[in-house]
């Protein structure tokens, strides 16, 4: 039986985290694929990979449902539920992405990429609306979800493109490395803003998990990729290796921090009393908020 201190929620486990990881990364990859077409980047394979990632995320959510065969009910509440909105946005995202991959039409790809950003936005709002979990409900998590999803997508692009299109790589790679630096810079700023917003706004146990993970996230997801990008610029002959290293680390760190936030730091609100009662001839006094002091 649970006690009086906030405890770790277990209803959204690794499967839910998986949706935020692959769905976010897939949306980000779709946007980067569209952006990279400005320098002649390929469309079909990377678009299909993006869609596959989004689909894996949706499948993971399906596996988490208590009544999976009622899944169509998820579309019933577009008025207020961001989960419904995410599911609705996924439809044009998948359809347009598939159409773009099969026809190669860039206009379709750009519209699909915009749907991907809407999908990512829904993911952030899903967390903000979860009022029972203090480390999710802060609006500052939006910046983190958005920047991390796009940075992860950029990281996966850097990993995949050398094997996919070695001949066009020379055109795209330097620009993508710069873009990755900008994205992880934005993500780092979003992370600091997010952590700052949790000050006195989350249970002690949750903050301990967040702070323990912070240094790993910053080192692996930001400092190390920045160094790798610098090495890629300094040693053009080894640019590919360092680019891949930077991309993989940027993506892995995003997946890591999402796993931490969804499954490890997700302590619930717990209970609180504003005042203790007078009871009998005694005197009333201050209240308590177990697990927060």
């Amino acid at each position: 039986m649970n006690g009086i201190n906030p405890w770790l929620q277990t209803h959204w486990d690794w499967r839910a985290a998986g949706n935020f990881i692959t769905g976010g990364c897939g949306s980000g990859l779709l946007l980067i694929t569209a952006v990279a077409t400005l320098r002649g980047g390929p469309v079909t394979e990377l678009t299909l990979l993006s869609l596959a990632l989004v689909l894996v995320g949706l499948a993971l959510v399906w596996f988490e449902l208590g009544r999976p065969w009622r899944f169509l009910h998820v579309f019933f509440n577009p008025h207020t539920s961001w989960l419904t909105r995410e599911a609705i946005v996924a439809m044009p995202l998948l359809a347009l992405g598939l159409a773009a991959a099969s026809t190669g039409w860039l206009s379709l790809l750009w519209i699909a990429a915009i749907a991907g950003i809407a999908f990512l936005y829904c993911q952030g709002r899903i967390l903000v609306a979860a009022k029972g979990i203090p480390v999710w409900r802060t609006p500052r998590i939006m910046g983190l979800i958005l920047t991390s999803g796009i940075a992860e997508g950029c990281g996966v692009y850097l990993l995949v493109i050398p094997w996919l299109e070695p001949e066009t790589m020379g055109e795209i790679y330097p620009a993508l490395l710069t873009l990755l630096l900008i994205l992880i810079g934005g993500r780092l700023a979003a992370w600091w803003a997010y952590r700052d917003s949790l000050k006195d706004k989350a249970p002690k146990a949750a903050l301990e998990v967040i702070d323990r993970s912070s240094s790993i996230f910053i080192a692996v997801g930001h400092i190390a990729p920045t160094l790798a990008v610098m090495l890629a610029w300094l040693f053009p002959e080894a640019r590919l290796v360092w680019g891949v290293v930077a991309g993989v680390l940027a993506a892995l760190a995003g997946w890591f921090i999402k796993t931490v936030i969804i499954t490890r730091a997700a302590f619930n609100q717990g209970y609180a009393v504003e005042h203790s009662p007078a009871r009998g001839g005694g005197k009333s006094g201050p209240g308590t908020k177990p697990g927060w002091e």
Partner: protein
Amino acid sequence: MSRWVMVADLNRCVGCQTCTAACKHTNATAPGVQWRKVLDLEVGEYPDVSRVFVPVGCQHCAEPPCMHVCPTTATRQREDGVVTIDYDLCIGCGYCIVACPYQARFKVTDPTQAYRQKRMPQEWKNEQPERLGVAQKCTFCSDRIDHGLVNGLTPGIDPEATPACVNACIADALVFGDIEDTSSNVSQLLAENQYFRMHEELETEPGFYYLWDSKSDKNEWDSGREA
């Protein structure tokens, strides 16, 4: 229109958990599921320490976050403020569970029993297959309210129309009634006593009020704080 609310007098609650047992008995909840329970909190620092017993459960919020996030519209709010779950619509996504800041919702995916090896006769009798894999929580015994109203009874006054936990309370610590009616039992209690609602800063407007002192005896601690 009525707005049903619960009042818990913290001065009276002795933490006996009779309400918890009455709720389980009435609603046949699975092992580990407690739609109503009483917290045993320790307040203060040694040597000035006291215990506070706090009944908790679904707060039937006026702005229920569980309802807003529900993708299926399974969670709804009646005109009288009672928040309900349609087990046939719910897909068991668990979103409402993480959206509730009162830890009031549960999900049981597999049939459970009190004794691991053997299912007891009453567990066969009270099987609730519709509750498996979906969200569940306190209903304010809405079936009792509705049945009572149809038969001309007053919820909170007539036991047949009152939630089981309130009926069972040995100390009259739990009181149920219509807050829209200024002459109701709950309205009078709130007029005569100082009260708070849990996690009010989250703007859920809970329908569960905790009395902590009478208004006439404004306590020293509070006066000191105001000064």
